[in-house]
């Protein structure tokens, strides 16, 4: 085992009956990393997470953790923790008993057990809630109990299923900070599944973008946000102007525009609305729609390149519907896509 592959999935194939869900997935995760599996629903991210936990049978391929092959190790012997999206607290047990559940199964008793549970509860700030039932807690508190319940087991890997999606905006920020703190303090390897790019960008060290059971791109949040390599990832992280190139040429209704000198090998180019220069440039478009968003204003332009979305500071003078504007798509700022579709 090298450091780069503390948790390693190789040629992992998963299926629901005869319906393939994840084909031939390869992924290496370093010890102590905070990884986001990002993708739309049905992309296989939850299935992959369940396979790591041992809740989903592996059709073929290998899962190894800390140097050992765990492909066939049952879920209860894996030392992998999972915080469920619904938290899955035991409703008949108190907060204290929920946290003690796994430790008791390990055979821990008496003072040792009590100390461990108390410190687990303290670490998530719920010491005073020890005797409550899950139903008496808010969603955020329930999630912290679920987190404590998994963390006291000292898992090698902690999995989190959509950890922030059931929380309101304020709690989301709180929980995000909490997860980062727990991760820093314990050094546990964390993998969380999300469909929300903002969540992944804010929390993860590395993001794995998935589509239809396959990995589209792996990279740092900066990479994913600024340098998507496929049209799918570009679209997912908010590049709204995406163009396919044919041999370096952009197909427009006014003929081909040659961009091969700027992007010799790219299969496509993508721009965020922010990246479009409005008011000057070689292209012209007619304003078809406009919307005001506080500090910015968005325009939808009809152009020979197709519809273009542009966003400019609200401090700039507004353009009326039907106005004809010059604009530019600065090629040096574009994301170069190596895969399209």
């Amino acid at each position, binding site marked *: 085992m090298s450091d780069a592959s503390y948790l390693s999935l190789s040629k992992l194939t998963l299926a629901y009956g005869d319906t393939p869900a994840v084909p031939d997935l390869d992924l290496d995760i370093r010890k102590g990393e905070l990884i986001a599996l990002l993708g739309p629903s049905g992309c296989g991210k939850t299935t992959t997470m369940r396979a790591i936990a*041992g809740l989903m049978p592996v059709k073929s391929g290998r899962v190894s953790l800390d140097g050992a092959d765990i492909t066939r190790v049952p879920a*209860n012997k894996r030392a992998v923790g*999972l915080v*469920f999206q*619904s938290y899955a607290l035991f409703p008949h047990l108190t907060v204290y008993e929920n946290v003690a*559940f796994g430790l008791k*199964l390990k055979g821990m008793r008496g003072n040792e057990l009590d100390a461990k549970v108390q410190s687990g509860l303290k670490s998530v700030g719920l010491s005073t809630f020890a005797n409550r039932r899950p139903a008496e807690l808010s969603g955020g508190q329930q999630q912290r109990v679920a987190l404590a319940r998994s963390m006291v087991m000292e898992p090698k890997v902690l999995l989190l299923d959509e950890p922030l999606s059931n929380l309101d905006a304020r709690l989301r920020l709180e929980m995000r900070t909490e997860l980062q703190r727990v991760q820093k303090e314990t050094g546990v390897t964390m993998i969380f599944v999300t469909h929300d790019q903002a969540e992944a960008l804010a929390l993860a060290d590395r993001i794995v973008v998935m589509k239809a059971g396959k990995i589209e791109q792996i990279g740092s949040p900066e990479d994913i946000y600024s340098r998507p390599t496929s049209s799918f990832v570009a679209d997912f992280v908010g590049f709204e102007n995406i163009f396919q190139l044919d041999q370096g040429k952009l197909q427009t209704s006014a003929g081909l525009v040659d961009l091969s000198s700027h992007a010799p090998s790219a299969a496509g180019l993508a721009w965020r609305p922010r990246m479009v220069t409005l008011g000057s440039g070689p292209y012209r478009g007619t304003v078809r729609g406009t919307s005001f968003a506080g500090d910015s204003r968005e325009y939808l332009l009809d152009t020979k390149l197709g519809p273009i979305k542009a966003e400019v500071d609200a401090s700039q003078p507004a353009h009326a519907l039907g106005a004809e504007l010059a604009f530019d798509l600065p090629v040096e700022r574009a994301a170069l896509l190596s895969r399209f579709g």
Partner: protein
Amino acid sequence: MTAQRLFIPFILFLVIAFLIGPFLIIVAASFSAGETLAFPPQGFSLRWIAKVFTVESFRASFGMSMFLAIGGTAAALILGIPASYALSRYKLPGAEIVRTVVSAPIIVPGIIVGLALLRYIVVPFQVGITLALFLAHTALVLPYAVRVVSASLENLRSDIEEAAVLLGSSRLGAFFRVVMPNIRGGILSAFILGFVTSFNQVPVSLFLSGPGVRTMPIDMIAYMEIVFDPSVAALSSLLAFMSIGIVFAAERFLGFSRYV
């Protein structure tokens, strides 16, 4: 206006009188001092209630009914809990068929169930009376067990079992540690419902009862054919209060009505 306002309470009163009236008459008749079953009761005494406890066949049939109600319901739950679990947790082929077959004894009239059991099970296979009654009561209670336990399983998220497994429990251990405690109320409700159903069962038991082996209701019918004194009313009252007591206690401590 006044007439309209009184109309609904009046109808309500009639309905309640219709439901509870016969029961009140029986209770009143059981305190009669007279020699025959009559209403209004002639005088007041507790002699018929005392007599109930001295009739030998009542004691035997009460024992039999208790055995069938407790044993049959327990057997139905032992079969019904795993069945409910499988039906609610796994996408089994033919699950709907199983559900329908399991519910059949509720839908099919008891007379037919009794006759069919007698004709095609008891007679050809020479099943003993007690065993036949036990099997019949188990089958009759099974639908209630499956239905009520299923209802409480539906209300329980299945991911808590996975959570228990990831915390080190086996699959079976997870069932006993986190599923059973959370459906305990449903199981107790099913038990009470099954107990009352079995105890009050007449048509099936009528066919399967034999010499010396009778359930309580069958024995009461037989007794009334020979002796027409108020002790049957007294016994009925005692049994009714037993049932009411059980249901009341269940509602009070378990919230019985949530599951039925």
